[in-house]
């Protein structure tokens, strides 16, 4: 088990390195000159050259990358060109809101997605299966921002049940989290349905019935446990989709999280901030995937002891 964990960690390293290269390259493959951009249009050539030296941009690219890495290792991501505050501080202040939002969305996704998938699979081709299948097909086709706006239209403007955002209380997170979680839940429901239906035809399900188990036990104990294995993979991947979606949802509902920060920094051409935000989101995603990889071991004994 411990060897397994270390193995997975080692596998993540090249990916992490690649991500760092990509994020670093974001500013260096650009057609423009970051120094000129930072200095502004009125700066003289001498000022730009000075700034370039200050930023280390006159160094060879390899050296710049090493500097970038060593700065990162000390927790430095540079200063935001827009606010002139350290990017790390700005990200740290916003991270909790993004984590609350995606965490709630994840919870919605898992509870709704699992439930819908199971209900569908128990009676395939029944009316409720067709209803749920139609709903989940619609769910994966709805543009996130549109769903958000429609929810605002109905629940905030017409019914006046819920606020259109705001992060002072959890109530403000309800609509954003539902917006973010519904599409992901639809995807999970589809996966659960199809993997449960696959599993229901497995020999060991027949064995469970031949033992005299009730249908609830057959599904709940024998089928579900095995269906959760692919579901966990999807949940890991979905975490990435949720993080990407958080960018949109935070923008719609004016939540000052990392996603909205990213969009704003792109609009301001604030490169250090953009780099920092992309890096943080990518690292969260890699971490979540690592955790889901490791959780296989808990669900699937075949992964646990490394035997055939």
């Amino acid at each position: 088990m411990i060897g397994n964990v270390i193995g997975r960690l080692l596998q993540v390293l090249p990916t992490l390195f690649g991500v760092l290269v990509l994020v670093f390259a974001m500013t260096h493959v650009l057609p423009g000159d970051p120094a000129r951009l930072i200095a502004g249009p009125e700066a003289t050539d001498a000022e730009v050259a000075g700034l370039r030296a200050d930023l280390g941009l006159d160094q060879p690219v390899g050296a710049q990358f090493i500097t970038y890495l060593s700065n990162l290792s000390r927790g430095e991501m540079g200063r935001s060109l827009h606010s002139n505050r350290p990017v790390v501080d700005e990200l740290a202040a916003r991270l909790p809101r993004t984590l609350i939002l995606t965490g709630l969305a994840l919870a919605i996704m898992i509870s709704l997605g699992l439930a819908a998938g199971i209900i569908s699979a128990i009676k395939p081709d029944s009316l409720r299966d067709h209803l749920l299948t139609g709903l989940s097909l619609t769910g994966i086709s709805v543009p996130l921002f549109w769903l958000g706006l429609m929810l605002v239209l109905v629940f905030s403007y017409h019914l006046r049940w819920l606020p259109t955002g705001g992060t002072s209380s959890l109530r403000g997170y309800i609509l954003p989290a539902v917006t973010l979680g519904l599409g992901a839940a639809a995807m999970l429901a589809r996966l659960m349905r199809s993997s449960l239906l696959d599993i229901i035809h497995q020999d060991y399900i027949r064995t469970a019935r031949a033992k005299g188990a009730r249908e609830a036990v057959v599904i709940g104990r024998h089928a579900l446990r095995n269906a959760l294995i692919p579901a966990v993979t999807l949940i890991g991947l979905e975490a990435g989709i949720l993080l990407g979606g958080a960018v949109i949802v935070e923008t719609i509902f004016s939540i000052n999280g990392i996603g909205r920060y990213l969009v704003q920094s792109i609009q301001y051409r604030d490169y250090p901030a953009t780099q920092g935000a992309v890096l943080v989101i990518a690292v969260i995603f890699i971490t979540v995937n690592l955790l889901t990889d490791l959780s296989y071991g808990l669900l699937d004994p075949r992964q646990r002891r490394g035997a055939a």
Partner: protein
Amino acid sequence: MSLMRLDPARGRIAGFALPRLPRFRALRNWRVSLGGAILLVVLVSSLLAPWISPFDPYAQDLKAALLPPGGSHLLGTDEFGRDLLSRLIWGGRIALLVAAVSVVVSLIAGLFLGLVAGYFGGWLDALIMRGVDILLAFPNFLLAIAMVAILGPGLANMLVAIAIFGIPGFVRLYRAEVLTLKGADYVEAARSMGAGPWQVIRRHILPNSIPLVIVLCSLRAATAILVASGLSFLGLGVEPPLPDWGAMLTNGREYLRVAPHLTTVPGLAIMALVFAFNIFGDGLRDILDPRRKH
């Protein structure tokens, strides 16, 4: 043995259109036919846009701004008095363009890389697959945003961004396809008769992969449209005044209280098109892989 050497794609008398795919059964699947019908409607109306749209999609008429649906403007007008229906019809062109261009670009790049990785193996394979892993390490949408951040906003850059993150799926598909077919008897037979790699790829691997590729293209097109509209929504994609559905929706957002149709209608259009691509691909996949059908 001789039977097993018959390539299912080449063993046909009537040529190769959709090998392995029972052509008529495909239409009996409701998802394939419904999805196909919606796609056909969007395609035809976009092609005929200059003739069937009731107004000029760019013509402003501030006296007729923000009209609700009904009357001479069937779906109402936007804040500049532009006819929503006409913009919707013209917008179909952009949506289909986004889907087609991004999918074709990622298909060609993925095809090339996947074939190379699968056919030649070794360090080339390792290199390509590591690259794919790194691309997949970014959440899809974030990658597109990052790309646009590098390249700057605009239709062309957005297409590049969407196309790039579509590549990994095709690389994996073609690599897997090549690895499976490499061992197939009829491919072995062709090689033993002196067929070169390119010949084997062209005559055997490409035609055999067509059904699966159609499925993947359809599902990718759905994602591409969703991502494109998301980028446009964030102001990183298609810019006004182009009648892009995502951009229209973003504009309409400011009038959500007074003119909700500006948001509702383009959103429904995006949803319908994405839905169509999704069910089309889904239905096809079920036909191709009966084990998945329940």
